[in-house]
């Protein structure tokens, strides 16, 4: 499933510089150093963290997109960096578990 296909399926776009990217698997985590070593390439990464380091970790781990749960938003400067670094960022109003369940339904 493409990242862009999540939009209007319970997910809202924050940045979408690379919407055609295919999602392969999901990773969940908020401790950035931990995620950095464990999230796999093309994963959709669900987190509630929203600082600039999130964009760096998404770049390093080469995730397909970042999904901010619980309606967390990106500060404007971080959003700008995400656009520049080609990092897709979406948000979901649901808590992390329900966000993951929704993704599971869409991905399978």
């Amino acid at each position: 499933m493409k990242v862009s296909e999540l939009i209007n399926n319970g997910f809202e776009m924050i940045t979408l510089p690379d919407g055609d990217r295919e999602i392969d698997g999901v990773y969940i985590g908020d401790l950035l150093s931990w995620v950095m070593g464990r999230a796999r390439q093309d994963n959709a990464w669900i987190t509630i963290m929203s600082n600039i380091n999130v964009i760096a970790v998404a770049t390093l781990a080469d995730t397909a997109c970042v999904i901010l749960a619980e309606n967390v938003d990106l500060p404007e400067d971080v959003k700008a960096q995400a656009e520049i670094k080609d990092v897709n960022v979406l948000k979901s109003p649901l808590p992390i578990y329900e966000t993951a369940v929704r993704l599971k339904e869409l991905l399978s």
Partner: protein
Amino acid sequence: MKELSLNILDITENSTKAGATLTSILIDEEENTLRLTIEDNGSGMSEEILRGVTDPFYTTRTTRKVGMGLPLLKLAAEQTGGFMKVESVSKDVDPVHHGTKVEALFYQDSIDFTPLGDVVSTVCTLIQGHPDTDFYFRHRILNQQKDVLVELDTRQIREVLDGVPLNEYEVIKWIEEYVNEQYSGPQDTE
């Protein structure tokens, strides 16, 4: 990171990479705060590099990969309501007194405070990996229950060892015990 001691390991590796011959790791705990200071006499950074040092992209995009160490330490400190600051004097600016100082303040009563973790292992790992570099470690805990002062200076140990490398297994084991004994305080064996 799950433990501050892992941040310490990461930051101190930067110091040795910058050619430091002496790196000090100072931890001061007082009431609800923990202050971490890592100071080295390495090659230092230019003002331009220093400005970008907490920007994760600045560091991941350059060929000299500094890593996420400083951005993550800054985040860990700020999550508790504290801060991190970095000062540096480049070798090019002052050929004699150069180096970098990283200072981070944490509020330990914050729910997002990252525990210090196994700092003794961190110090031993550093010595083992860099036996020709000197380290000064000092951990001071001041509170109503107990005052603890733990110190280790590899320059002193080196003098006593008279040529035996610091990364010999027995030496590292001894250092580990020596530091741990200081934490447990004087035993009532007299």
